[in-house]
């Protein structure tokens, strides 16, 4: 109802309804032809007239604004849609009959189609009508392109289809005198349908509906048709990225290479594909039939070649940087690995730096990232499954898990979530994380995002599932608990005493970042009697010249600190660091000198900031930053009692939170079996078991005697001694 009201009151341009005025003379001519026929169709199709009337009513609303002169033109533009709808219904009704005829005479229809093509080559307008088959329209539907481009395309296609159907109607109107022409039109359609049905024996007549076939367009044996289909798919020649290189295999057979400029390694095409295929002797030894098998096995010296026969599977490969070879006479094509686009080199991880540990971070390239993981986990049980996760930008993600360790149910759950995404655009792991997490309303992260391949490897070895997505130098691991966010890869690389110490420091930092602002607010505003006398007197003296209420003073400082942090990140390069230091020093010093804030408050804000920096996970640190403000609010309204209420709310939220079915604070609440590896990290050789909450297939991560050299005799026996 609201939409109706909106349409009623808001003027929309005709183009927003999916129509535009003809721009070039050819289109105008087509329109004129069309308009000459609509009058007849209106009389013929009475059932459509009611729809037209309703649309005309809507149109009138616009015409009030537009002026009465344009009314007639607009109504005429609307008509093709109704015409198409009516005719589509007719064509659907005709299909079973056409199918039957087609099944009877498949060869005949091919011949007829060839003859027809020869006739139409001379006439350009006719060619357009023949070249644009029904399945091109279906292809465009697959792409789900929205916005103006889509509207424009629709208009074009409507024009073409309506032309075609006009032609058909014209034929029909004159068919009483010339039945043969209308039969030709029908057989064209039948041939196209029969081609689509090739290779789909099982589908049979039940799967005739266009909805079921709209994603499946098989390669034609005729290279011209394939090229035209590709041109339509890639919007050529408007789109100049896609290169279709036509040539002849051994100077005999028509062929073409299709690839996207800039996405491929040119040497593969220049050195290892074209010279071999264009060589005059390339077909020596080849006898008859389709040469694709011969070329794949004998001529092309490319390391990875796959055969495909469907545009649905070919197009994403081309878009990913692979090169496709189409050969005349073959109903398959060769898809060659040729990816060679520009990419960033492996560098030190920026967000998870460590002192003692690997210094390699992920890049934006999926293949590189998987290689980095595989270099650490050199095991045949590491499974990598590739999945396209977005519909329009076709982003590829890899699902990694250990076949013999990971719980199958977790793998299935991750697959279920990834497979059921229905979204046009995903830019990388950050968006993917938000789309697969359990509850988006929760403040704390439910999937861990890491830049370090060694962390992903350790997660995989624990029995977690990893998702690596192209486009961002981060990988996701799941399911997680709070302690995964709290740990770093350095903890394991250092001796257990050092690791434990660092974790305790980190825990204190986290607690300070979360609770100190709220507690400080509560103490200053409500519980001055709880502050030791000497401390209280110094606070009172320092606060004496400050003109603001405490809460305003505090929020002002916290906000300034957040601004410095945000500004420091956004300002490029070294300027950012300088801004941070200058901001902190000058702003703080000046604020104290001006008597705007008390020095004690600056210390509290600074310590809080440092505590926050100690949190190793960026998402968790952000969550704590937000929670801090909420606790300041609770402290301001209820003192320490208010802080307790706020803290309890956060606890309850995080305790009820789950990551892929695993409670966030697992191993504490609920209590599960675990190694000494939560806050205090035990010696490495005593971390016997994998996390209990993951229910892994293989629960033990080491043997009964992981450091066997302790019990073996010096000078012989086991382990390193064998090498002596």
């Amino acid at each position, binding site marked *: 109802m609201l939409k109706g009201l909106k349409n009623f009151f808001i003027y929309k341009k005709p183009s927003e309804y999916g129509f535009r005025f003809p721009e070039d003379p050819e289109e105008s001519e087509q329109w004129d032809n069309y308009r000459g026929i609509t009058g007849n169709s209106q009389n013929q199709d009475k059932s459509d007239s009611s729809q037209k009337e309703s649309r005309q009513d809507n149109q009138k609303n616009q015409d009030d604004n537009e002026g009465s002169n344009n009314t007639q033109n607009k109504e005429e533009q609307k008509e093709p849609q109704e015409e198409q709808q009516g005719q589509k219904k007719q064509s659907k009704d005709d299909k079973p009959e056409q199918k039957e005829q087609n099944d009877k005479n498949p060869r005949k229809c091919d011949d007829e189609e060839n003859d027809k093509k020869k006739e139409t080559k001379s006439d350009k307008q006719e060619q357009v009508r023949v070249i644009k088959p029904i399945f091109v329209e279906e292809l465009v539907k697959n792409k789900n392109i929205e916005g103006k481009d889509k509207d424009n395309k629709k208009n074009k296609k409507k024009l073409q289809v309506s032309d075609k159907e006009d032609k058909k109607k014209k034929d029909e109107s004159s068919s009483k005198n010339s039945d043969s022409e209308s039969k030709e039109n029908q057989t064209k359609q039948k041939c196209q349908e029969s081609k689509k049905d090739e290779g789909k024996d099982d589908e049979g007549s039940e799967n005739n509906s266009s909805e079921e076939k709209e994603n499946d367009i098989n390669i034609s044996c005729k290279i011209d048709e394939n090229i035209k289909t590709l041109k339509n798919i890639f919007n050529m020649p408007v789109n100049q990225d896609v290169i279709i290189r036509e040539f002849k295999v051994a100077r005999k057979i028509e062929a073409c290479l299709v690839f996207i400029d800039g996405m491929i390694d040119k040497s593969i095409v220049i050195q290892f594909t074209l010279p071999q295929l264009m060589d005059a002797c390339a077909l020596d030894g080849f006898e008859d039939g389709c040469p694709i098998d011969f070329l794949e096995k004998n001529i092309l010296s490319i390391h990875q070649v796959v055969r495909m026969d469907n545009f649905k599977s070919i197009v994403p490969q081309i878009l990913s940087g692979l090169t496709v070879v189409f050969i005349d006479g073959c109903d398959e094509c060769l898809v060659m690995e040729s990816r060679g686009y520009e990419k960033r080199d492996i560098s030190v991880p920026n967000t998870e730096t460590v002192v003692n540990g690997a210094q390699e971070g992920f890049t934006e390239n999926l293949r590189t990232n998987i290689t980095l993981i595989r270099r650490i986990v050199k095991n045949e049980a590491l499974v990598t499954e590739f999945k396209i996760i977005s519909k329009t930008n076709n982003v590829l993600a890899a699902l990694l898990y250990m076949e013999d360790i990971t719980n199958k149910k977790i793998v299935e759950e991750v697959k279920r979530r990834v497979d059921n995404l229905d979204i046009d655009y995903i830019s990388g792991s950050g968006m993917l994380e938000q789309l697969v997490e359990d509850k988006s309303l929760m403040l704390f992260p439910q999937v861990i995002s890491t830049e370090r391949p060694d962390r992903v490897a350790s997660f995989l070895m624990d029995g977690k599932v990893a998702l690596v997505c192209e486009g961002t130098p981060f990988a996701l691991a799941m399911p997680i608990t709070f302690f995964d966010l709290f740990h770093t890869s350095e903890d394991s690389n250092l001796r257990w005493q050092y690791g434990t110490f660092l974790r305790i420091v980190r825990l204190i930092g986290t607690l300070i970042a979360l609770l100190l602002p709220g*507690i400080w607010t509560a*103490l200053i505003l*409500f*519980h001055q*009697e*709880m*502050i*030791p*006398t*000497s*401390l209280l007197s110094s606070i009172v003296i320092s606060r004496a010249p400050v003109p603001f209420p405490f809460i305003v003073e505090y929020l002002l400082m916290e906000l300034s600190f957040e601004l410095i942090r945000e500004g420091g990140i956004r300002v490029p390069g070294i300027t950012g660091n300088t801004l941070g230091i200058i901001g902190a020093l000058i702003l703080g010093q000046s604020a104290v000198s001006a008597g705007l804030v008390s020095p004690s408050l600056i210390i509290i804000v600074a310590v809080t900031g440092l505590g926050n920096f100690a949190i190793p996970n960026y998402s968790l640190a952000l969550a704590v930053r937000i929670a801090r403000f909420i606790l300041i609010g609770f402290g301001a*309204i*209820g*003192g*320490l*009692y*208010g802080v*307790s*209420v706020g803290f*309890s*709310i956060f*606890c*309850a*939220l995080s*305790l*009820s939170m789950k990551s892929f079915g695993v*409670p966030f*604070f697992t191993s*504490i*609440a*609920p*209590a599960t079996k675990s190694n000494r590896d939560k806050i205090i990290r035990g010696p490495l050789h005593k971390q016997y078991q994998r996390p209990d909450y993951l229910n892994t297939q293989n629960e033990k991560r080491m043997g009964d005697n992981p450091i066997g050299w302790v019990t073996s005799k010096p000078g012989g026996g086991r382990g390193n001694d064998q090498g002596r």
Partner: protein
Amino acid sequence: MIKEGKFGYHEAISLLVITITTKTFFTSPSILVEVVGTAGWYMTFISTAIAILAFMLLFMLLKRFPNKNIMEIADLVLGKWGGFLFSLLFGGFLLWIASISIREFVEVLKVYVLPESPPSFVMILFIIIIVFLSFMGLETIARFAKFIIYILGLGFVLVILLSSQNFVPRHLYPLLGYGIDTTIIYGLLRSSFYGEIAIIGVIASSLHGYKEIKRIGISTLLISGLLTSISLLVFTLVFPYTVGQELTSPMYEMAALIDYGGFMQRMEPIFLFLWNFGTFIEVSLIFYAVLMLFCHAFRIDDKRPVILPMATIMFSISFIPKGIAEVISGLVQTIRSWGWIIYYVPPIIILIIALIRKKKGESQNA
């Protein structure tokens, strides 16, 4: 619908221990000193023993009807209307307990921490957290208890250790308090202190079988008895019994007395957190048990629509007492002395009727 879910041994013990022992943070110790003098710290073991006995009778009932909670058992044994009356009676009593606990908490908080804040404001904040936890469900409340017990334990140990500077052993004398007979009589009556163990019957469906219920019940009572005894012992060591009976919250006072020089003094902020978290969990569990009882009595599947109205009723009931004096000397004292009648007697009556009518659960040997 809120899923009650299942929770394990540690969560259940944490939940019940906190619910029982939080009372020591308020006015109960001073009342105890008033009635038994210096004998409170061992008198509580008599109460614990009685509570264990009562729990064993409750356990016999739960064992007789495996995988059923006390409301379902009451329905089976007493019939539809009998069960309804039992749920209503027990639910009403727990609602009263929850309301009085909130009022006691608010009054004590007002005395020590928030003297200028209106009680209704303090209570609204309290109701918010109770409602919030109830919406999250029993499983979350149990996990919250398990999570917070580490903080509570640490704070408790810290306060006791730091208070050791104020221990005066002669405050324990006379060892027998006001006489052994008084100690025993009040020990029997004050078994109501552990009465919340009866809630285990309400939440029995969320625990893993009757064998675990037995372990949970016994462990809870022993741990609670020990902690209560330690609290009372420490409190008796710090304050002479003549002073102790005058204090509103002896444990809070004890924390405030800590003084290790100019900076290490006034440790009450630590104690304040113990107070708050403990009471949140205590009232949340009792309130959730009330919800379960009422929803069972009136055959309501989804508890969520009931939470806010029930919280409003609890809020209103907690305003019925006229002041702190009525709460401490009247209601709390009565509940601690005579609460056992509602906590322990109805399950025993149900057990006796079940034995007489030879009613049993379907899969007793499962």
